[in-house]
């Protein structure tokens, strides 16, 4: 088990390093990075000052060293607009995004898993077919459009729910629904196919041959096996959700890191943009690591692999 964890940790670290290199390279690729790293509307003197500060005329390796040492110290740059370190901004907004993602994820699992199980157990019935159509629609509708339509309905026409901001339960309902919809469809599909696979397995057949009640066969033998891929997906999806929430947060003016990113673009505040990508990517690497380790805990087979 230990070797397993160490190995995964090693992979994660390599990924993080590559991540930083990628971002670094892309910023430098576009001609004059100074123009990005400087405030909009700066004078030539300012541009030169920035060039000096980031050592942009020095060899790439040196620049990268500066960049990395900054990152490791927690210095992700300073926001032009807010005049505070970006890391602080990011961390202050992160909990909001987590809340939104948590609610959206709960919603997607509460809808996705039971419908997936139902569709699998009643495969090819009208329930199953309806579920599949549902899933297809969910996967085809962009989340921000769902958000906009929801606002149209519930805020403009019905006046029941607030269209922006945060603070009460009513504020989180629409954004969470819009965000979670796609994932509900994806979870439903995966649950269904995973369940179908498991229901056809020999050990399920044997469980039935043992004379176990069907409820038990499904709930104990089939479900646990079937849910492994689904929960893995859900764990990974949580972080994806946080990052994909950019547009939903923008639509609803939800004060999370997605909206922060939008502000970064709208105000041409590059440090925010760069930091968000770095931090977002790091989060995903980190979560992948945790999910891998958890997977190893649940499924005893994984632990004993190389």
């Amino acid at each position, binding site marked *: 088990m230990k070797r397993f964890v160490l190995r995964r940790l090693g992979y994660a670290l390599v990924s993080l390093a590559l991540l930083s290199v990628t971002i670094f390279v892309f910023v430098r690729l576009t001609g004059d990075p100074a123009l990005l790293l400087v405030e909009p509307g700066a004078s030539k003197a300012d541009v030169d000052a920035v060039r000096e500060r980031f050592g942009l005329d020095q060899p790439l390796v040196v620049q990268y060293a500066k960049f990395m040492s900054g990152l490791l110290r927690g210095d992700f740059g300073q926001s032009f607009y807010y005049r505070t370190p970006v890391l602080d901004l990011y961390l202050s907004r992160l909990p909001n995004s987590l809340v939104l993602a948590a609610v959206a994820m709960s919603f997607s699992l509460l809808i996705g898993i039971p419908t997936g199980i139902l569709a699998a157990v009643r495969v090819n019935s009208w329930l199953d077919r309806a579920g599949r159509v549902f899933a297809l629609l969910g996967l085809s509708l962009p989340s921000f459009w769902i958000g906009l339509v929801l606002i*149209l309905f519930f805020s403009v026409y019905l006046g029941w729910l607030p269209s922006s901001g945060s603070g009460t339960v009513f504020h989180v309902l629409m954004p969470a629904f819009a965000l979670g919809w796609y994932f509900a469809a994806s979870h439903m*599909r995966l649950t269904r196919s995973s369940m*179908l696979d498991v229901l056809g397995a020999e050990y399920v057949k044997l469980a039935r041959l043992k004379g176990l009640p069907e409820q038990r066969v499904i709930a104990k033998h089939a479900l646990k096996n079937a849910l492994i*891929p689904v929960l893995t997906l859900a764990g990974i*999806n949580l972080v994806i959700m946080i990052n994909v929430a950019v547009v939903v947060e*923008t639509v609803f003016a939800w004060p999370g890191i997605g909206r922060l990113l939008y502000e970064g673009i709208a105000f041409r505040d590059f440090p925010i943009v760069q930091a968000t990508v770095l931090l977002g990517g790091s989060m995903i*690497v980190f979560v992948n690591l945790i999910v891998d380790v958890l997977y190893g805990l649940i499924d005893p087979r994984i632990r004993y692999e190389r």
Partner: protein
Amino acid sequence: MNASTAVVLADVPRRATRRLSSYPVVPLTIIGLLVVIALAADVLAPHNPEVGALGMRFRPPVWQAGGSAAHLLGTDHLGRDVLSRLIFGARVSLVVGFTAVIVAGLLGVALGITAGYLGGWVDEVIMRLTDTWLALPALTFAIFLAAVMGPSEMNIIIVLACVYWTRYARVIRGEVLSLKEREFVRLAIIAGCSRLTIMRRHILPNVLNSAIVLATLMLGVVVVTEAALSFLGVGVPPPKPAWGLMLADGKRGLMAGYWWLTVLPGLCIMFLVLAANLLGDWLRVKLDPQLRQL
């Protein structure tokens, strides 16, 4: 399991006793229709999509009070005709979508085959790169790239290709790994073919099936991402009519109840993505039941 492979994982009913139609009528019709519309945009659109009459702002569609036959689907905040913008928007979405998917595919397949076939450190390096890139949240990374490169139609295509090639690479590499063990590859090696030849003539044609299926699935994702980018302002720049941009503009009129500026472009996106997904599903079942796990 990793972020994007997990997201791409979907299912096709295995024990389905449903009939598989010989032709995927619905998706092909939709896509075909959109292609025709995009090609004939100049002829079909009643007005210039980029110029509007300020006196005709926020007109509703023809069937609502205040609408007129001159603007069947209404006008936007600058008085531009919605129908014309939707028609030209099809062109933008399709061009960007198809090109990005193909470029990403070329890149991803090439790298996937190289990594899978050559193995060893080449494989490790490429895979670490792929995994890292996969770890980057697609939308965020796309936004970052777009911010760095500046908005233009061309740049967006490059951005999308850069973000999504990884989806192909991972899957294709997996396929190549199992293909490597097959008889005909061994025979080619014994016959003395160079590695490049084997990759090109033996491996490539066999992974094309998966690549095509992936491409159709990616089309939907790419279209939605492009719409999101345009919505946020880092995609296709105004005044070009992209559906995502129309949604952004539509937001201005949302609280006033000007629903057609939001609902209509969204429906267009939905139809295109739906068609792409349906086509992808159909292809998956048709081409090879093995591709189910895609």
